[in-house]
Every structure is written in C-alpha cells, then in structure tokens.
C-alpha cells in the first residue's frame, strides 16, 4: 500500500492552542493535569480541562461563541489553523474524517439551548463541514480509544484506493460528567496525576483535546517529511473492558503493522505507547512490546501531560510523534517513577536528542480494540 504523508497539524489542549505551544510545553515538562473536585462524587481526581473563557476568547475571532458547543469550538479552531495554512485547498475534493468517542455527550445532562439532535455524531460532522464548506459527506469514526489513530489508517486505506488525495483527520473528546462518572464507577480514576508504567500507578487521568492533521497521498515538496507506512488494528477477542493478559490483540496489530511497513522491530527508534496508567493496561502493553522485541526501543506515554483524551489521544500522540521525528528529540515520559510492569522497558526518563527514522504508535481501547501505526521520516 502507498504511503500517507502527514502535513500541517494543530492541537487544541490545556497546554496550548497550537501544535507549537503544545510541543514547547511538553518539552518543558509542563502538564495540563490539574486537581478537580466534581459535585457528584466524593472522589477527588486530576484532569486536563480546557479553560472555557480562554477558548471563547480565541474562538470569538472566527465565530459566534453561543452558537457552538465547547467541543465544536475546539474542533473548529483546530481545523481553521490547517485551512489557514492551505488557502488553496479544494474543499469540494478534500475528505473530512472526524473521530470521537462521545462527541457532544455533555449535552445529555445539560443541553442548554441546543436541540437533542446535537448529540448525534453525524450532526457534529455536518456542523464542522458546513462551517468551512467541505462538500464531501464527513466520514465519522467512533471506535473507542483508538479512534483518532484509526482515522489515519482509514485515511490511508481510502486514499490508497483513490477515493481522495487530501484529507483532514480530526480527533476530539471532552472531559464530561458522563465519562467522569463512568470511569469513576469503574474505579479507574487516579487520585493523583496519572503515572504511566510506574510502580505507584493507580489509574487514569482524563483529559480533553482536539487534534487535527492534514494528510495527503501525494508527496509534498518539502525536504523533511513524515509518512504513515504501516497500519493494523486487531481485536483481543477476550473481554470488552479488561485488557488481554497476554497482550494478544496489541501484539498482532504490531506484527501486522511492521509487516505492512516492511521493517523489523529493531528499526523502530521511538515507541509512543498508549500507557493509560491503569494497572492492567500498562502491564498488558509491556507484555505485547516484549513479545514484539521492542524492549530496547525508547518508549514514552504522553498521558502524564494530557491525561487520557479518549478518541483524540491516538491522533494527538501521533502528531507529537511526527514532531519528535522531525526534531530528532525524545520526550521524557512524564510522571514516571520506578518501573512497575513485569517486563523491562526502555522508558525515556529525560529529554534527549536522537535521530529517529521509524516510529511506532500504539493504542488500545474498550471493546478489545488495538491499533499500531508505523511512521517513517524522509530527511535530506
């Protein structure tokens, strides 16, 4: 299969409203996770939440703040940045791939002035498409916590079969009362900022973000370019919420993605893990990585910076991976203490300079889904 080139991107998160601000913040070790105390549970927890006043202030330059939900504003701001950099992009031909787990789910509890139809993900797609004038029906993907990364795989598959040349892939999700009470009922929320792969990890921290990236099947005329050269998803076929003890699905997806990319595990220079910081997830990942011969590869989880941004996470983290490859830098795995998984891993403990030619991004989610993406850097 052909490559999918990764072009301009944008990240809207508590760490900043552009990719540049986000990269700078994580380079400095800043985290978007803050102490929260919701009204409906006695449990305290940490989450990465975007300041709505700040969001409205920035959004008011491109649209009416009362007409759009928080999530829509985040998505519209992200896509706007890409379109501003690609003024000549033909919106009649460009595909829009929107990925999310829960969309505007916060409206279920507090609809405000929005009609019930606003809960529908197809409506969310329409709002984004109409705002900018995309003519193609948006492609909407909702596949748990691998959604954003799977959006890239879908773009590659459809682009490869000639359905489009250019696409914009968006991943976005909110920290809503809905997901907080859900993960709380799962007793999966950490009482502190999450600590991926560490001994003292005790659960996830939630986060919200919108990430967007322009992708193309045509090679751009720039000297350094990153492309997606391998992808695979695989189901554990084991349990709908608990990760497989053997890491089977993740292992299969890694094997297939490496094969698709025609590279061996030793070539991988950076492994961007899912690393949610639940006891079972991180353990499962360490087993799958070991089985794949990836134990020596520098690895990090970005959840300590952003929390788990659900449907946005695998896309947001792919964008950070892209920039790590372009900048030849390994970003330290935030909040890592002492290794707390049964298999050894080469966790990045401080920022380092390193030439990266190939990188692997993985993600896993409810429903037993797993995803692996292989990126290649072409540098001059």
């Amino acid at each position: 299969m052909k490559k999918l080139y990764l072009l301009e991107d944008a990240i809207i998160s508590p760490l900043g409203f552009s990719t540049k601000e986000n990269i700078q913040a994580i380079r400095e070790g800043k985290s978007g996770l803050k102490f929260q105390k919701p009204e409906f549970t006695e449990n305290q927890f940490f989450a990465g939440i975007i300041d709505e006043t700040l969001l409205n202030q920035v959004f008011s330059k491109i649209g009416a703040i009362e007409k759009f939900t928080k999530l829509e504003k985040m998505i519209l701001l992200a896509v706007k940045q890409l379109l501003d950099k690609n003024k000549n992009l033909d919106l009649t031909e460009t595909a829009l791939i929107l990925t999310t787990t829960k969309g505007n789910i916060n409206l279920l509890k507090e609809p405000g002035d929005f009609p019930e139809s606003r809960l529908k993900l197809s409506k969310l797609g329409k709002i984004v498409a109409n705002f900018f004038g995309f003519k193609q029906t948006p492609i909407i993907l909702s596949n748990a916590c691998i959604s954003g990364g799977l959006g890239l795989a879908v773009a590659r598959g459809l682009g490869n079969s000639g359905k489009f040349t250019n696409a914009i892939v968006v991943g976005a999700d909110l920290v809503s009362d809905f997901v907080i009470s859900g993960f709380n009922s799962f007793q999966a929320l950490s009482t502190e900022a999450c600590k991926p792969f560490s001994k003292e990890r005790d659960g996830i921290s939630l986060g919200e973000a919108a990430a967007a990236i322009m992708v193309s099947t045509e090679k751009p005329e720039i000297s350094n370019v990153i492309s997606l050269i391998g992808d695979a998803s695989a189901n554990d076929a084991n349990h709908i919420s608990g990760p497989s003890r053997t890491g089977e699905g993740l292992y299969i997806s890694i094997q297939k993605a490496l094969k698709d990319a025609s590279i061996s595990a030793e070539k991988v220079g950076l492994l961007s893990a899912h690393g949610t910081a639940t006891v079972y997830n991180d353990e499962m990942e360490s087993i799958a990585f070991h089985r794949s011969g990836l134990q020596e590869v520098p690895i990090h989880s970005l959840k300590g910076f952003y929390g788990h941004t659900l449907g946005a996470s695998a896309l947001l983290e792919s964008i950070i991976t892209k920039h790590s490859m372009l900048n030849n830098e390994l970003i330290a795995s935030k909040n890592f203490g002492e290794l707390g998984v049964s298999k050894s891993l080469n966790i990045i403990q401080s920022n380092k300079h390193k030439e990266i030619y190939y990188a692997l991004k993985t993600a896993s989610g409810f429903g037993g889904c797993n995803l692996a993406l292989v990126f290649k850097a072409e540098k001059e």
Partner: protein
Amino acid sequence: MADVTWLWFLKQKKNKMSNQFYIQDWVKIKNGEIFNSGKLIFESTEKELNLFLKECYEFLEIKYPKFHKMDGLSKLGILGSEIIFRKNKPTKDTALVISNNASSLETDKQFQESTKTFASPALFVYTLPNIVLGEISIKYKLQSENAFFISEDFNAGLLKDYSESLLSSEKTSRVLCGWLDLQNGEYDVFLCLVSKEKNIPFSEESLKKLYCAENDKPTHRT
C-alpha cells in the same frame, strides 16, 4: 485493432479477478422480522425490544448466557452474526466494518439516568458503539480489523470503499460489514459477509438494493 481490444479485455478481466469481491450471505432484522439472504426466517409481533431479542435468541438456540448481559445494540449484533457465521464459519481475520446513525445513544441515555443515583459500570461499558464489535469478536474468536462508522443514513459507498480497501490490501480475506442501528427501541440491522468467492458482486448498488429490499420505510432520522 483486434489485438488492442483483446488486450483491453484481458486487462479488464485481470482487474476484475484481482479486485472483485462478492457478497456471500446477508441478514436483515427489522420490524419483528428476520430475513436471511432474502428469505424470511423468523417473525414476531413482540413490540418490547428485550422480549423480541430474547425470542430471537431462543429461536436461534444460541446458548450463550453472556447474551443476557449485553445492551440492545450488542444483542442485535450477536443475533445477526450468528445467522451468518453459522453457515459460513468465520476465519480469525474476518474484519468487522459496521456503521449506524445513533452510535450508542440508547445505552448512553440509560447510563446517564443511572448516574442520578448510582452510576452503573455494567451500563457504562456499553456506551461506545464499537463494543458490539468486541462482543462479536469474543463470541466468534475474531482477532481482526475493526471499524465503527457513524453516518446519517445507510452509507453504502463508505462501507463498500473501506471494506474493499481492507480486502484489496490483503489486511483481511473476509469482511462482515453493514448497518446496526438502535434508537428509541426501533432497530434496523443489515449485515453481509464479503469475500473473494464468486456470488453477488460487492458494489454500492448491490448493497443498497439488498439493504432496501425488505425495507418498506427508510431508516429514521432526527
């Protein structure tokens, strides 16, 4: 001239052979009726969703106690897949490409209701549309590609394009694709199994035709 025509014909044939996929079997569940490859195999006047689903389960003699713990969308997915996979033994790499309109909204509302007293973990786990893909994978031991798309209406083009891209790139040899929607107790299921074995050509037109065949009214919108 004749040679050129012959070459063109060979090329078409070759393209067809390498890129053509076929619908082996399909199932439709709607308005109290189950159709399998065009044949009515079950009908019921039961209006209450869970009772109807239980009737179908008993009719098919599935014997899978986990079924009763699932939400409506997952039950519908299991019923549909059972009918197809009973006749066509699934391979481990059989991909699942499913779409709907309502995502998991039916269960989302029930979970939201539960949060008023005690948030239910057993409901929360079903508040994602792709959970049904996990349930199908567990029941039929599929460790394959999964994708759950949301569209306003049955989007034959997208289902065909994405399934075909998985088949053509040899990421899989078979795809179970279709539509699996549930909202306000109304269900609309259309699943079909696609592979290289010759049968009904897998095209946007045939998908639309089969989906609409037993549909007297179009899928609901809001």
